């Protein structure tokens, strides 16, 4: 009997990561420089929020030049509705779209490296290409967004705790990537969206919550599948060990990339790295498998014996082995 191998964690992969400024600015590094996560790559002036008004918008005064407004000042009217400045900023007229827009006062934006590596290329005033080493966690289902930010790891809590954790992080979650626990229900996903979390990771999610995340362009990645499934223990341990590190959510590739320092404890022995990649293997006793059959869907166990068209798997906390039909499992490495 043959079965595919899935690698939930692909260790020490060399990749190129582009870090870029949101608008033109200054870069402080050059090709060949060695980088650490908190190293400054560059800075620029940047308005984080820009609001375009519809054509029906009537400004307080006709203007073609940039005009400064203080927070609370009247900008104009949209029908009978008064529009006020939500922050200090400038209103301008975009001649190409013939629309007025308001942008916050530009603030200084500092671009950090976020990872260990070496500068491979520099596009002046714009971006830096970094050669780095990452560990990739496979997301079996995810929205196709890309985002990066600090990884916040919650314990594998109950539902009540999930919401408590989310709310207690209310001032600090914006732009972060949060591992939310074994299961992300629709309500939690909506709450995370309200809190402007850039992406959430969970063992499993509700299909409706997943559709919601897709519709609002929010990052959502699941590790085991849909329904109420658990996060494999070894993945949780890895996430926990890299909490607060800057990570990259690549929805298009279906992976969460975690930059690694390349220090000894984070490096896989060279022997392991050189073995040729195998994706199909003969099913044998003692192999670790992920089971995809109710009521053990998503759980990881060890093969006790192999039958003609099924296997018997032992799980932690189970008395005897459980029969699992071929093909309702994958070998895990």
């Amino acid at each position, binding site marked *: 009997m*043959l*079965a*595919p191998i*899935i*690698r939930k964690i*692909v260790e020490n992969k060399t990749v190129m990561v582009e870090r870029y400024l949101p608008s033109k600015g200054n870069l402080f590094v050059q090709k060949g420089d060695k980088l650490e996560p908190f190293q400054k790559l560059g800075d620029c002036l940047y308005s984080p929020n820009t609001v375009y008004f519809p054509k029906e918008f009537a400004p307080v005064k006709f203007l073609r030049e940039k005009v400064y407004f203080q927070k609370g000042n009247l900008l104009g009217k949209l029908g009978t509705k008064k529009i006020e400045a939500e922050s200090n900023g400038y209103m301008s007229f975009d001649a190409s779209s013939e629309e007025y827009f308001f942008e916050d006062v530009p603030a200084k934006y500092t671009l950090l490296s976020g990872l260990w590596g070496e500068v491979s290329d520099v596009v002046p005033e714009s971006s830096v290409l970094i050669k780095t080493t990452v560990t*990739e966690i*496979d*997301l*079996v*289902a995810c929205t196709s967004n890309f985002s990066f930010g600090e990884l916040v790891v919650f314990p594998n809590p109950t539902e009540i705790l999930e919401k408590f954790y989310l709310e207690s992080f209310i001032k600090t979650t914006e732009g972060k990537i949060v591992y939310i626990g074994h299961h992300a229900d629709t309500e939690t996903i909506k709450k995370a969206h309200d809190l402007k979390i850039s992406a959430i990771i969970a063992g499993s999610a509700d*299909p*409706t919550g*997943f*559709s919601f995340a897709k519709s609002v362009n929010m990052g959502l990645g699941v590790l085991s*599948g*849909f*329904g109420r499934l658990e996060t494999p223990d070894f993945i949780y341990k890895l996430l926990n060990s890299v909490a607060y590190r800057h990570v990259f959510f690549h929805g298009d*590739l*279906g*992976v969460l990339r975690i930059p690694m320092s390349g220090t000894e404890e984070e490096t896989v022995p060279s022997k392991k790295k050189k073995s040729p*990649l*195998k*994706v*199909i*293997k*003969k099913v044998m006793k003692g192999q670790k498998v992920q089971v*995809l*059959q*109710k009521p053990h*869907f998503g759980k990881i166990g060890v093969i006790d014996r192999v039958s003609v*068209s099924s296997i018997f798997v032992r799980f932690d906390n189970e008395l005897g082995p459980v029969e699992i*039909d*071929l*093909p*309702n499992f*994958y070998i895990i490495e």
Partner: protein
Amino acid sequence: MPVLAAYIGYSGVSVALEKQDGSFGFQRFPYSYSRELFSSVCDENFFYTQVLDGIAKENKVKLADFDVLMTGIVSFPLQDLNIKLMADVRDLLSKYDGNFPVLVDESAVMTKDSVLSQVPIDFVTNNEYFANISIYPQLITRDYNDQVSLDGLIIDKVKKAGIKLTSDKPVVFTGDRFARRDYETVFKYSLALDLFDSPGYYYVKIDKNNAVLLAQLIKEYNPNINVDTSQIIENVGTFAIVPGDTEVLLSTALDTGQFFDIKKSSVFAIPLDNSITTKLSVKNKSIGNLEGGVVGGTLGLLFDTREVRTQLISDIKIMNVFMREIEEAVKGI
């Protein structure tokens, strides 16, 4: 060189491998490439090359010693396999003689002369099982309701296409839905029955090895090779779709005959071998009277007198009777 023919389907790979004596062995690898699981590690080319390599090794032969022929849902390059012939599924079905092939899987329903539906099922719905199939396409379920929903989607697709399945030749159901191992074998028979919409008499066969496609693929490559599929394709029996009350008289040269009065809205199976032709007389108001010879098979002779053709397995009452009938029919031969 001997031949290895492969069909890459929605949920697995079916293979016909030529043995030393010139006969063919049919095998199935019940997994397909899932982008969600493997894209961070390998592409389709690498995956399917390893699958065919693994199957060859299991048979203690080398893949390089075979002429590899390929068909299936293949929209990607397979440059690592030295493929001698790559054929289109529709082309193979249209050239297949003898029986009337109907290919059914979760992405398409095709017959010898038409594509009934080629719209993939949208799996990311509120149904967790469907959502998980979008990640793990090979899943088989032990949950009766999940099976009802899945087959119901296939039947709906065919009915919405508005094309009625009829043929004077034996109808052979093939494709990955019929190659997939079901928890209850009766699900394949009930799906086959539900795919017929027009009253009439149909001789039905089920191909669990995609042998129809593989045999035609080999014939295209070398018309002198004759692949014997008679032992591989299951002769299910005759399906009589006769809405309303029906009277049946069955007689052979050896007995005096048996009379059956079959009430409307039921499914009734009579054990009947396929080695001898049995004389059949049927009285039915909606399709008229019939006298002729009939042969049986695994199920024998199956009468479906339902006037409203809803999904058979969704009706627990009639399905329970059907399962009992089939058990008795199979025992009776």
